[in-house]
């Protein structure tokens, strides 16, 4: 028996060795293939129906819009070649690119453009992403290559929200009911006009996109793009180090040095249009702008950027990305100054009470801090801020919770008490921020949605936001957004902490790839040797 055990063990060991050394060596990405990774299984590849960011990482290769904002921040013609706006800002006419075909061979026409509006506004379709389409009164299609949008009122964000939105194929959906559309195979295998087509979707494993031979633009250099689905961020870094990836975006600051040392990897560093903030829920003392300003003074932003973000962030002063066209350059963040914070609160009537806690009219200044449990850096940021606020004399408990618990019903936002929530946010590179600051977006109850969770309300802000939306003239619009940002800085509806720096590693054999705050170079120009 001893001998048979031994023989068995030797066999197992040999088998393991054979398995581990057979086949191709790991870490080889074949030429003409570009491999990248996302954390979640893309839920739905229809741009109007998806819920997860991972989905847009896939479908952006498949669909086109009338106009596209390129990676330098310039608008470029896509499915349209030119456009004109009427002087009253209510009629937008687009001339479409002739000869474009869908990846299934059908011709692309103005009918598809009109249908996309009907799709986006159909109340029976489970649409998640569609803003601006409700401002459209009607769409005319005088010829197959001409589309005329008639708006209900002048609407400045039209280009960002509608002209920049994906166009869907009418011929696929024409005979489907809304219920069928919600569950269509199209949602996993979409038909688009873009440079790549989804040719394989292995759930939770990878999505393969192949070059679209019918693409209207320059012929794609790559044969295929493979998007692997790997949930763990550390595993993603290990994949990059093993040479299994062409591209890894959003490397966690803690592993940045390690990835930098990977042979051949080129690092791209850019400001992501996403900022970290503290939402101040205005119930009691937080209704008072002086208290909010004092808390801003008492928040050690520079220290957070240096010690927690390891320098991979830039100070924030408003909700417009600092290297973008909409940032108000005259504003500077409040410095960290506990003395000024204390003076502001003293002027406001606060006096130190038992235990050094500030009190006013017999009530203690109590502001609990909350952060997302899934974000390690958020929790660390919270601890640092809590220490500083306590030093000021604020009674501050620090707690973490899941996103569902933090933002959903019964969460800390709904308990009717002052609270401060740390998370990240951003309307991207576009300026439209009405849903954040308008009093019309204050949630009415725990079940009613509303993005103005801080319950900030200022009639002047409401007026400016409405005016910005109606002002089509670019220079005037810029001036209004400057005033909106000055208002944000004065009123402190939220404390702006910092903008995230995105670190992306690109493999040595990749050509033609670059990335900025505004986006990536067109994928048809990427190649791998």
């Amino acid at each position, binding site marked *: *028996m001893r001998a048979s055990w031994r023989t068995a063990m030797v066999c197992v060991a040999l088998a393991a060795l054979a398995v581990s050394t057979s*086949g191709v060596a790991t870490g080889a990405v074949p030429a003409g293939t570009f491999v990248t990774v996302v954390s*979640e299984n893309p839920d739905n590849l229809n741009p109007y129906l998806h819920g997860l960011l991972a989905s847009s990482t896939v479908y952006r290769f498949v669909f086109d819009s009338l106009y596209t904002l390129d990676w330098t921040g310039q608008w470029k013609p896509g499915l349209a070649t030119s456009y004109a706006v009427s002087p009253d800002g209510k009629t937008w006419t687009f001339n479409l690119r002739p000869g474009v075909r869908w990846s299934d061979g059908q011709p692309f026409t103005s009918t598809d453009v009109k249908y996309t509006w009907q799709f986006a506004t159909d109340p029976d379709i489970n649409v998640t992403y569609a803003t601006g389409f409700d401002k459209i009164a009607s769409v005319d299609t005088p010829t197959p290559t001409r589309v005329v949008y008639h708006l209900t009122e002048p609407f400045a964000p039209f280009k960002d929200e509608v002209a920049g939105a994906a166009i869907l194929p009418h011929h696929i959906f024409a005979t489907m009911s809304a219920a069928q559309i919600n569950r269509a195979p199209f949602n996993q295998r979409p038909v688009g006009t873009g440079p790549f087509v989804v040719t394989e979707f292995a759930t939770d*494993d990878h999505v393969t996109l192949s070059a679209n031979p019918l693409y209207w633009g320059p012929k794609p250099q790559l044969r295929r793009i493979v998007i692997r689905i790997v949930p763990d961020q550390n595993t993603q870094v*290990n994949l990059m180090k093993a040479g299994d990836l062409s591209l890894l975006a959003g490397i966690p600051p803690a592993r940045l040095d390690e990835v930098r040392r990977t042979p051949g990897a080129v690092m791209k560093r850019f400001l992501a249009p996403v900022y970290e903030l503290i939402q101040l829920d205005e119930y009691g003392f937080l209704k008072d702008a002086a208290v909010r300003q004092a808390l801003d003074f008492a928040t050690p932003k520079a220290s957070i950027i240096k010690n927690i973000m390891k320098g991979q962030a830039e100070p924030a002063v408003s909700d417009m990305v600092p290297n973008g066209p909409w940032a108000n350059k005259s504003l500077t963040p409040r410095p960290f100054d506990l003395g000024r914070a204390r003076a502001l609160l003293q002027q406001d009537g606060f006096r130190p009470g038992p235990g050094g806690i500030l009190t006013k009219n017999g009530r203690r200044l109590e502001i609990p801090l909350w952060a997302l449990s899934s974000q390690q850096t958020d929790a660390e940021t919270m601890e640092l801020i809590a220490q500083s606020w306590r030093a000021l004399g604020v009674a501050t408990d620090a707690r973490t919770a899941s996103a569902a618990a933090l933002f959903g*019903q019964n969460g800390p936002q709904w308990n009717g008490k002052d609270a401060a929530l740390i998370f990240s*946010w*951003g309307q991207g590179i576009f300026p439209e921020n009405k849903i954040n600051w308008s009093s019309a*977006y204050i949630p009415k109850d725990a079940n009613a949605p*509303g993005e103005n969770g801080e319950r900030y309300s200022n009639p002047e802000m409401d007026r400016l936001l409405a005016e910005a939306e109606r002002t089509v003239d670019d220079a005037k619009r810029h001036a209004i957004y400057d005033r909106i940002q000055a208002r944000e800085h004065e009123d402190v509806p939220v404390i702006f902490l910092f903008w995230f720096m995105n670190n992306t590693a690109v493999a040595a054999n990749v050509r033609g790839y670059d990335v900025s705050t505004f986006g990536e170079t067109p994928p048809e120009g990427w190649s791998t040797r």
Partner: protein
Amino acid sequence: MTAYVARRAAQAVVLLVAVSFVSYAIMSAAPGGPLAVYLHNPEVTPDKIDLLRHQLGLDRPWYARYVAWLGGLAEGHWGYSYYTGRPVLDMIGERLPATLTLMAAAFTLALGLSFPIGLYAATHKYRWGDNLLSFGSFFAWAMPTFWFGLMLQLLFGVQLRLLPVAGMHEIGVTSAGDLLRHLVMPAMVLGLGSIASWSRYLRSSLLDTLNQDYVRTAHAKGLPDSRVLRRHVLRNSLMPIVTLMGLDLPALFSGAVVTESIFGWPGMGRLFLSALNNRDYPLQMAGLMISAALLIAGNLLADLAYAALDPRIRYQ
């Protein structure tokens, strides 16, 4: 025997309905909900969220949704995922083979390693080999799964380049050899806890049996050591291990959640983890029901194995 199994199966159905009711109630009472993902997304407007709430039937009370869900289940419909719009059963079917492969590999590995380790440790009590294995077992038990997985990746995937870091196949390759190469590390990580605990239980159970009178008698009869060990000691020491194996079945399933996430293994564990994060109720319920069913099945299997191992046990 047949009557016994039938009775246990009937009890299981009642138990599962009770489990489903409690789970559904707790799930609905928890803060947040399926739309919280959208609430925290700057690009989804409030009116869209309101519309979605209505379309998904989330504006109905939870007990009404539960009754509808249970009614559907009785007819064989597991419902549709809130996020993909696809039938829950299809989504599970896609991932089932990957999870079963991983669980079977981990189970086989645990079986293949824990027995020799347990036997060696018991027959070399308190010698350095036994002490080393004891230390190793406790170390393996105490080690966080995710950390062990990442360390294996760094060693075998990044440094030595012997094994793939993650995934189930190289892109475009479907051979069995490729699958085995990808299986080595995740199966090791998933099976490690079982190897550690089974070998410890086997050791102590063997030590108990080794002190029995009938073992001494067998030796006195002049039987060779290997025969005593196999026939008299091992067989009589199996009872606690079999119970443990039955109970480890659902543990392997839930352990697969972490292992699959670390190794990008396209199985059910990840599916249910994301369902939990996104509060995709239909998927979440399917995951809970499957793990509850596995727990009940594992117990039943252990009970049945008792009878096979110990002729004194009779089921009525």
